[in-house]
């Protein structure tokens, strides 16, 4: 048995994977440090040292040295069903991998011999030890005796634990997200506010978000628990965009104003200013400086742009799907903000439609994406000048988002978009803006 973290005074030996260590820390770190829990990695995980009682067991797949997925140990058929749920959201390669895993789960033990067990001390009341333990509390919230969680081991700079939750019959009952540091705390709180706001009546029949089943704090960490997506959902692939009607149904154009007078741009400028003066942004100083330069151009832009009630903030093919009834489902609302220049979601979609933004050539990508998104922006009432301003606000937003991550992580390591790519994006947006200004002046 390998002990990762024990009660106060125990040892820390590590799992062999920095990513798994980080996920364990994110899920249970506080309770481990407080001696309320103990995490063991073992061959079977059923037995633990005297004085500890196992509460949850999760298989680490495919191995602890290269972990990608934690799967709750539960009845075999249910585990198989959970592993093959949401096939429509996965690439063919991942679908095949999941089917192979499900076959293993249904017929015999899953390939990984490593089981991660979460144990509580026998000398303390169980309910006290599990007071902020996520798996236990999500089961309580969902009124289920126990759950089979599926938890991806994420590697990005803004990674946070996300859990697909299934009953012991293999039925999807929820999706949970848990913050673990100030950066992810802001994201989970923003998503909670956005999804709640949408549920308050601004959802259209053409597009919607999973509803909130629970939100609050586990210990001092915010969490969000939403209803599961429909089982028949299929990812919107490639350039098959969210329709203008669905977009406008969710985020109607509520007024026309200069970009600078929108709430989104005001908050964005505020965040950029705080980044510039915080002293934490040394790693992102060049990006922040270039962004503030473009920010001045946006501030002085007089073009009146259509303003939407909200924008999703990360509308990309892997955060959107359509069910058999034709309803578009959107999730991952962490970057959503109210009162934003209309059309930025269309831009973001078209920049990412064929995969995440590339590390090079982002300037050209912005121009191409703006061209592909042009019909949607025109539909929203944006002419050439307005489109240039909206593209500039978008580039600023992406720059600030990346700079904030870099500042929080003290560097651009693990970044999908390197600093050079962000600078290229900003420069391209500035050129677009200046070109439109010149052409409108003539």
């Amino acid at each position, binding site marked *: 048995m390998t002990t990762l973290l024990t009660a106060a005074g125990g040892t820390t030996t590590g799992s062999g994977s920095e990513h798994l260590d980080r996920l364990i820390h994110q899920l249970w770190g506080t309770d481990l440090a407080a001696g309320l829990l103990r995490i063991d990695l073992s061959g079977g995980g059923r037995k633990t040292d005297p004085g500890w009682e196992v509460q949850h067991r999760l298989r680490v797949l495919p191995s602890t040295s290269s972990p990608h997925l934690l799967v709750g140990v539960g009845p075999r058929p249910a585990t198989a069903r959970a592993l093959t749920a949401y096939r429509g959201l996965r690439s063919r390669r991942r679908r095949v991998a999941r089917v192979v895993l499900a076959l293993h789960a249904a017929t015999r033990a899953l390939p990984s011999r490593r089981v991660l067990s979460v144990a509580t001390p026998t000398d303390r009341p169980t309910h006290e030890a599990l007071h902020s333990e996520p798996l236990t509390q999500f089961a309580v919230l969902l009124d289920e005796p126990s759950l089979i969680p599926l938890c991806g081991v994420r590697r990005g700079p803004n990674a946070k634990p996300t859990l697909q939750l299934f009953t012991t019959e293999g039925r999807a009952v929820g999706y949970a997200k848990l913050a673990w540091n100030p950066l992810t705390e802001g994201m989970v709180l923003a998503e909670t506010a956005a999804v709640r706001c949408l549920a308050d009546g601004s959802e259209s029949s053409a597009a919607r978000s999973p509803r909130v089943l629970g939100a609050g704090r586990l210990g001092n960490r915010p969490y969000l628990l939403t209803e599961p997506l429909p089982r028949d959902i299929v990812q919107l692939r490639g350039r098959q965009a969210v329709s203008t009607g669905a977009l406008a149904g969710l985020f109607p154009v509520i007024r026309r104003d200069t970009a600078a007078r929108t709430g989104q741009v005001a908050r964005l400028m505020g965040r950029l200013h705080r980044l510039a003066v915080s002293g934490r942004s040394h790693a992102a100083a060049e990006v922040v400086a270039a962004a503030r330069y473009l920010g001045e151009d946006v501030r002085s832009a007089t073009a009146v742009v259509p303003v939407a009630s909200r924008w999703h903030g990360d509308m990309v093919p892997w955060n959107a799907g359509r069910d058999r009834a034709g309803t578009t489902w959107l999730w991952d609302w962490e970057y959503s903000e109210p009162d934003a220049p209309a059309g930025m979601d269309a831009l973001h979609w078209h920049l990412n439609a064929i995969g995440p933004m590339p590390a090079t050539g982002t300037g050209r990508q912005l121009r191409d994406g703006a061209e592909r998104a042009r019909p949607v922006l025109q*539909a929203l*009432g944006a002419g050439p000048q307005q489109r240039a301003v909206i593209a500039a606000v978008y580039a600023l937003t992406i720059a600030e988002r990346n700079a904030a991550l870099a500042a929080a992580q003290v560097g651009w390591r693990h970044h999908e978009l390197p600093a050079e790519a962000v600078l290229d994006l900003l420069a391209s947006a500035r050129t677009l803006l200046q070109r439109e200004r010149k052409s409108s002046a003539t």
Partner: protein
Amino acid sequence: MSRMAQLASLKSRAPRWLLDTADVTSRGAALATAANRPVPDFLIIGTKRGGTTSLFKYLAQHPGVLALYPQPRDKKSTDYYFSHKFNTQSERWYRSHFHTEAYRRLLHSRLGYRPLSFEASPYYVWDPRIAARVRQVAPGTKAILLVRDPVKRAWSHYQERVQNGVEPLDFEDALAAEDDRLAGEPERMADDPSYHSTTWDWYSYRRRGVYLPQVQRWHACFPATQLLVLRSEDLYRHTQAVVDEICDFLGLPRRELSTTRGYNSTLRSGDEPPQRAVRALREYYRPHNAALEDYLRMSLGW
């Protein structure tokens, strides 16, 4: 039940694979015999939301009028003169959508006069490049243009866009945003012959009701005798009389219509436009309507 109705009924009951097979076979045969298929004798070129679908259906009832081949497909237009098609499809492809000379001769012997073929697309009069394209391909083609009260046309156009799920703005905002939406589109269309602008088609609520430049553009490419301009309101109220006038224009014998019901009205046609927008549009169109009346030497009554 008419022969067309019987065919439509049969088509609705046929399995998909059979329809696909029939489609591929008939398209292949049409392309193989395209050299023997003349270009259409006349076009219905507009205006959008001005009764073009109804007029298409009325004329298709005439035994001497041939809609697109094969007729059971019940297609109204080839869209051949749209930029993306005109620059990628051949004239052979275009001709393949009309009936063969042999079939026309057969009908001619039965009817005692030569039947005419046609298609209808309200975009043809609106895209500034299309009249010249039609002249290039079919200089002898006649055209029929319906013009409707532009205020009602704008509202109906807007209603249709809402119904199709592509109009996110309310009517007054859409009118206010129209210049921004269309900005740069004419220049782009002029610069790029292969560019088809859906924005120019979809969001031109106000501008499309200014008919005079559209009529003049057609007249710049064709003699006045090849264009018949009619009021949509007359088609709605005096359908038989208008169809008779069209038959005279085309040189066809007059024929009583079996139905004069309207086609392709929007689901929201009962809705009323906001009165403020109506007043602003009336004011905007007043000089344009007057100029059109002068030019056509006819009273439009708007």
